[in-house]
């Protein structure tokens, strides 16, 4: 039924979440759970890989807003990488690039964590 899934991956100390499918009001809780799991594991350097993310609704965007503050307070960050153009457009319309590091390549996002 749910056409959304989150895959967990590590690159050094960075936790990468691979989003797949459609992130909307129904599936937002799955991403919430994934980020909560990262927090519980003390993994606050998080990269969201959106290469396979086909759609995001406003409720989906709300998940990032809900956790970014806490993650940054713990010295980490949520960076977003490899979004498809259509999905990037949704982020961009709302001004998310002003609030989040949104980059084309996952390696760049990892690099930013390493430099920091």
């Amino acid at each position, binding site marked *: 039924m749910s056409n959304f899934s989150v895959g967990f991956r590590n690159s050094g100390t960075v936790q990468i979440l691979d989003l797949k499918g459609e992130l909307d009001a129904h599936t937002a809780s799955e991403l919430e759970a994934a980020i909560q799991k990262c927090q519980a594991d003390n993994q606050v350097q998080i990269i969201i890989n959106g290469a396979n993310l086909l759609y995001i609704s406003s409720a989906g965007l709300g998940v990032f*807003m*809900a956790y970014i*503050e806490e993650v940054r307070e713990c010295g980490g960050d949520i960076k977003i990488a490899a979004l498809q153009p*259509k999905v990037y457009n949704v982020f961009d*319309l*709302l001004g998310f690039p002003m*609030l989040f590091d949104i980059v084309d390549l996952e390696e760049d996002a990892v690099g930013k964590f390493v430099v920091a």
Partner: protein
Amino acid sequence: MGMLLLYAVIMTSGSIALWTLVRRYFKKRPTSAGRVIWSVLVSGFALISIAAITTNFGTISTPGIDLPLGFAPGSGVPLTTTAIFKMVIVSLAQVLFVFILLSRIQELVLVKRTSSSQHNWYAMLFVFVAASLLSVFRAAGDPQNFVQDIAIVVSIVFMVLNAFRLSWIVSLSFKEKLATIGLCMVLIVLLIGGPGIGNSGSSFLIPDAYSYLEHYFMPLAAFVKQATIFGILYGTTSFLSLLFHLPTTGDFRQREGERATMHSLTHLIGQVFEAERLFESVAAAPVESGSADYAWLALPDLDTGFLQYKVFATSGIVPAKVNDLFDSTQLASDLSRDNLPLIIQKAQADHRLNLKTADGIGSLLAVPLIAREEVLGALFAAKKVSSGFEQDDIETISIFAAQAAVAIDNAHLFEQQVERERLEREMSIAREVQQKLLPQNVPEISGLSMAASSVSAQEVGGDYYDFVRLGEQELGVIIGDVSGKGTSAAFYMAEMQGIFHSVSRIAKSPATFLTHANTALAQTLDKNVFISAIYAILNLETERIVLTRAGHCPAAIVRLNGEARYIRTRGLGLGLDRGSLFQQSLTQESISLDPGDVLVFYTDGVVESRDAEGEEYGYDRLLSILKEYRHEDADGLHSAVLRDLRGFIGSAEYDDDMTLVVVKWHGVPIDTLLTSTQSVKEST
């Protein structure tokens, strides 16, 4: 011979009349077994007493006649009045007794009758009569002939058939059985001692009873003899059967109890309005049926957590004690895992029970209540003795549990239905209220035509649009979209409406308004909620529109010459930043309008609508349809877009809240145009 025949006819008719009277008299009498036999005994005892007194009353002392009973030898004609008197009284007493006997036994024989049992009974009566009538010309003291012997054999066969019709015995209680055994013994004695079984001299209560009958009317004597034999036979089979059934009486009574309890439980299934009464009846069932000494019903306690069982109703035990008996969480998970009854035959030695509170409980049974593959709770039954639960007790209580599960499930479903209907009513009220937050009509302003609509995917939604007149020359237009859907979005939408109506009049520019709105919303918006919006102020005098976008889908502008584009200024959504970044992010765009220019505001529900293949409607298609219909007025353009959208998604179901606002600048005050047209029409 003629006299003899006449006598036979009179006696036969008299007997039939007497039988009919007896039948009629007992027709409406109670038919409980004890009472039936009791009535036979009372009447029999009275009649036999009368007969016994009569035979011993006076002596036959007619001088010159020395016959034992006063009948002429050979002819058998009574020779003295005393003999006649005695003969009539003794004979009638016996006849009446056996008539009562037969008519009452009939009630017992025909308990739970079948057509064959009924047939056997009446056949026996017929054979009695037939065999008796064969003796019509036999003189007193004569031996029976061959035919009469055969008739008696046939009659005995039917007696045996009917003597085993004893269904009435099983439903008697232990005490009733004991009493009935006594009654049967007395009845047998009364029958042997009274009419007796022929001329064997058994009638010790009435000496010469049979001889008197023989002299009175031979067929009657034969009938009384057969009836008496049957009475003794029936009394004997009843006596023995009662004796053998005595030990199993308890079991039978329990079955009866189970059946009655099951019956009342079945009615409970429809009892969905009063949950408490339902619970009490369920808990009472094992005790009432005699399957257990104590019983109680435990259901998940919704106050403390789902797996904790709480006792809701008890029967025969103090509730406080029961609650501490088990680690109920452990028990609940055990029952849910196995879905099988838990049987503890030695409660005192079982580690799962709290020994202190287990006092008085010898064995215990817990049956899960399962409806639609879900464990709703458990029915507990306990006995004072250990190893008290036999397989049939367990089965019975399991059946109660199954019934109870269905009843409780029904009650739950009913509650849910009521709750759902209540919610639906609430939501439809919310919908009405929300509709009132949107403008009921677009304002009428000369030089402008406007059209707007908003639909929600659910009862209520998070889309908002509104207009406000700012002085003579300015009109404010806002469109907003709260993130998420449904009730929470609807509340923020209402808040947005309040902010718009209070702040728009004092804000000089769209950016100022949005900054104020962001500050106001920052206090109430949840972290994960934001609102995208566009606010535009149109000046009718300068023919310019100034707009600022706060994260919202960009407005489209379509010029009369076909030039069409989205106005995509920079700007964060409301609530995404609660400090100064928001204000810094905003930019304003000011556009000079020419007559025929159209501005279109919409929410993401429009461009993100999908067709059956999952393809989005998209920005390009929206822009091209606007271009195609740009010559229409606002209404025409508005409905053209909706029509195209509906055609695209292929069904009337909208997946998201969807709002569309079209504002067309005509430049020339069209109301004056219209008025002149109308006046022209009126003048013609």
